[in-house]
């Protein structure tokens, strides 16, 4: 339970930090901490159902702070979690570069999804050239920060599972780590 609450708090703080940072630098130069957290959950969280609910909750928090439609981030976070879960099973995501590429692609897909949802539900202009221009640096920055983000989620998750169970886990570090 402590793990869930801690990750919820961290996930709630992520869009707040992004919102504050966005007053100084363009947001597409800032990594999407919420997305990294959700993808990290998809890669290392044990329970699929728990991870899904947590990802949806993090999406709802982002929806409350964002000008998006209520439910839009939630839907995209569920998709990101599912993609990360499927990716961890079907693809070789060991190492920094595959993780960075995976997050780059996922950023592009979720952004295009966001544009399509706005176009469909709110009759916005959908995806335009300017959005695509901003998307490239944003995807690259997300990709660059992905390994650190995942490592942080993994560490918090394993640290809190020790706290939850009251036992010390024996850390075995394989040569090729999954995360």
């Amino acid at each position, binding site marked *: 339970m402590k793990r869930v609450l801690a990750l919820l708090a961290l996930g709630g703080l992520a869009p707040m930090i992004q919102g*504050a940072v966005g007053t100084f630098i363009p947001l597409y130069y800032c990594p999407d901490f919420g997305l990294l957290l959700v993808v990290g959950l998809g890669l290392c969280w044990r329970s699929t*159902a728990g991870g899904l609910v947590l990802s*949806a909750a993090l999406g709802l928090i982002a929806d409350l702070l964002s*000008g998006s439609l209520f*439910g839009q981030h939630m839907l995209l976070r569920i998709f990101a979690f599912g993609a990360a879960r499927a990716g961890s099973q079907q693809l070789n995501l060991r190492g920094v570069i595959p993780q960075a590429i995976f997050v780059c692609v996922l950023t592009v897909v979720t952004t295009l999804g966001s544009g399509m949802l706005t176009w469909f539900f709110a009759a916005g202009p959908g995806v335009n050239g300017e959005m695509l221009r901003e998307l490239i640096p944003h995807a690259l920055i997300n990709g660059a920060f992905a390994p650190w983000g995942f490592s942080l989620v993994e560490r918090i998750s394993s640290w809190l599972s020790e706290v939850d169970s009251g036992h010390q886990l024996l850390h075995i570090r394989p040569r090729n780590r999954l995360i």
Partner: protein
Amino acid sequence: MAEFRNRTPVTALVVGLVGFAVVAMVVDRRSAPGGPERELSGWTGAILDIAAPVQKMISFPFDLTQNAWRHYVSLLDASDNNDGLRARLAALEEENLQLREALIASGRLARIAEIRADFEVPMLPSELVGVDPSPWFRSVLVDRGREHGVHSGMPVISEHGLVGLVTATSVRASKTMLVLDRQSAVDGIIQRSRSRGIVRGRGTSEMDFEFVVRGSDVRIGDVVISSGLGGVYPKGIRIAEVVSVSDPGSALMQTAKLLPAVDFGRLEQVFVMLWRGPTMELLYAGEQAGDLGVMASEGAKP
């Protein structure tokens, strides 16, 4: 079979969560800008209330550094600026005097004074504490909420022009959709020629002005102001300046690109107009919302 049984709860959960998200989006779309007022309470309001001080705290050291630097830089050419501004002030005073004389001569000054009294709207100075966490939406969080008299549907301006519209409020904070947002649409007119059109946000630093080709006169450098016809924003607020006009070809509608009057990258303080336009008042009245949905052409896209 066993695998199917194991996967069923997760599949049901996915369907449930996706269904909830889609229904939430549909309901949210129906309620914007009319329908039930977006006054967040309970845990949803608490998140907005927590976000405002947290964001203020995070941005405090950056603000301090940025302000110190800006003040230092502005001091470097303060003397030159001062001379320029004095000259401009003198010219404007002279022009003002001439206009007043003309108005007195035509007997319209007294009438204008009466109208002005009717239009004076109380304004609440507010501080911008954070921007939208997603780069694809343009909204800001301000540190004034319901306890300060701020409600959904109130226009937000700065000293340079129109900023946006309050879309959701909590007790001590509120969310404002900027005119740059892709969901924003404002009824505007060209100040010089009085040509009417719709100012639409593109989600970037520029906006579009869509107008009917026939009978319109739109040129580069023209100033676009709010027309007040949508019943959301008061008339006469500066919105943007025309920077380019597209070739209409044989189309009925033409588009001009606009540069906003407000520098959204440097926006720090805004004023919430403690006033709701007639359309907003009617739409947020609740029962009548369904009948009047068609009037919501301004504020958010239909």
